């Protein structure tokens, strides 16, 4: 714990100050309050084109078919298999900012880190719209993205397990 380190010198003097530039190169994360979102904005219609070109091969023509993760919620599915894996942006993701953050860092899976901010904004707009969370002509940018209402937000509760015998 912290106490173990209190006899340490104020500084060991190992390491160097990070420059703003090198931090900026790595610091692509986006918080729920929108901190970290870059300049620019995205449109559903343009995202549709990028999606078809770079994403549909793995996530399906409409974001449902796969073979990889389903991205778009099916309303009232009847197929029990679809029902089981129907946890997507539309009904399970609590924050819209996560869509931008994750696509930018990790997608497309075979070329991670290859998208421009513009493409990521467009894709975010497209996927939010396909999930019924924004309108077809809504614009997604640093101001609007944190405000998108995500239906799943209310379901999330912090860990309620405790020490001791209770099973939760």
């Amino acid at each position: 714990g912290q106490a173990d380190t209190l006899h340490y010198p104020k500084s060991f003097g190992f390491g160097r100050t990070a420059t703003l530039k090198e931090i900026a190169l790595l610091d692509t994360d986006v918080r729920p309050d929108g901190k970290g979102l870059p300049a620019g904005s995205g449109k559903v219609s343009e995202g549709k084109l990028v999606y078809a070109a770079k994403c549909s091969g793995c996530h399906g023509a409409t974001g449902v078919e796969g073979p990889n993760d389903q991205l778009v919620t099916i309303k009232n599915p009847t197929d029990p298999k679809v029902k089981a894996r129907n946890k997507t942006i539309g009904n399970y993701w609590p924050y819209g900012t996560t869509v931008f953050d994750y696509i930018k860092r990790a997608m497309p899976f075979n070329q991670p880190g290859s998208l421009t901010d513009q493409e990521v904004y467009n894709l975010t707009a497209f996927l939010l719209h396909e999930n019924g969370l924004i309108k077809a002509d809504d614009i997604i940018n640093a101001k609007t993205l944190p405000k998108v209402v995500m239906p799943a937000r209310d379901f999330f509760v912090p860990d309620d397990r405790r020490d001791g015998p209770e099973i939760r």
Partner: protein
Amino acid sequence: AQTASGKNFQAALTKSELHLIEEIEDPTKVPGVRPGTLGTRSPFEKPVKAPSDISSRTPLQDLFGTITPSDLHFERNHNGVPAIDPAKYELVIHGMVNRPMVFTLADLKRFPSVSRIAFLECSGNYRGSVDGKVTPQQICGLTSQSEWTGVKLSTLFREVGVSPKSTWFLAEGGDAAVMTRSVPIEKGWEDAIICYAQNGEAIRPEQGYPVRLFLPGWEGNINVKWLRRIELSDQPFQTRQETSKYTEAIGGGKIRQFSFTIDARSIITYPSYPQKVEKGWIEIRGIAWSGRGKVVRVEVSTDAGKTWKLAELQDPVMDKAHTAFRYLWNWNGQPTEILSRTVDETGYVQPFLKDLLAARGGNMGYHYNPVTAWYIQNDGQVLFKAT
């Protein structure tokens, strides 16, 4: 067709050949292999992890004691194991700090160090089976144990001057998934380790070479591998891994988030499927662990859960560590079920599957740590059974 004498001759030859082979094979009669630069594994021993596209499981049923050989440590990654040049490696710490800093691998190794033997388990580590044909590796092979060495994160927190207002930090990996998880700042001050060594040597690539975050007792995914960046913040980042994944439905429409602690657990590794046992004395063996602290007790039942006896724990019992247990049993040859359950130092008792299901509104998901039973047929065949 062969003549009688030809046949005899052949038989004789075969016999002398056999004799030759036997002579060659008598290891007391041939000088052996000279000392070398690296030890080897016997060609007769071929323990292997069981890989899928996204993970690979430790062969728990093949192991003895508690240390996992590093090349058998389970793997879980989100876009493969990156190739990282240690000379180019840097860890950036920034955000709510007095002085954002960059540390090379050499820098990290110069700070005061700490070592501890501890388990690491993926929170998605339970698989059942209807026909009973699953090994410990398949049931819960996403747990392993190493001696981890590194610098305490608290030491680096002091070096960069973490703001007292910071409440969370982001840990980011340098892999192709650029893995990110938010960690409460208290864990960083308490016992988080920035690890660069595993079982005496450099961390293996599959475990995060050259540097990983190690959060004793917490679910595998948050122990970010190939760590390249830590950002101090006053709120969690709500990354994909802590929202879409590594959260679990617990009934009533609720989804549990930031469920870090690994609940107490155990598994009997011997006897287990696909082994067959014989009537008579059997040492029931297994491992027990808890992310909450020490294992204080392991109970074993050999009558399908009707009665429970104390298993022997192998000393020293370590905090948040796989602990070997043993129970000597004389099997009478009648079909039965054997089970084990762990009690940890907080009084938590490893639950049955049905109790877990009930507590979580019928949902399966992460953090499933049920007691598992082995059904022993009267022919000695051991089969998995859910509880």
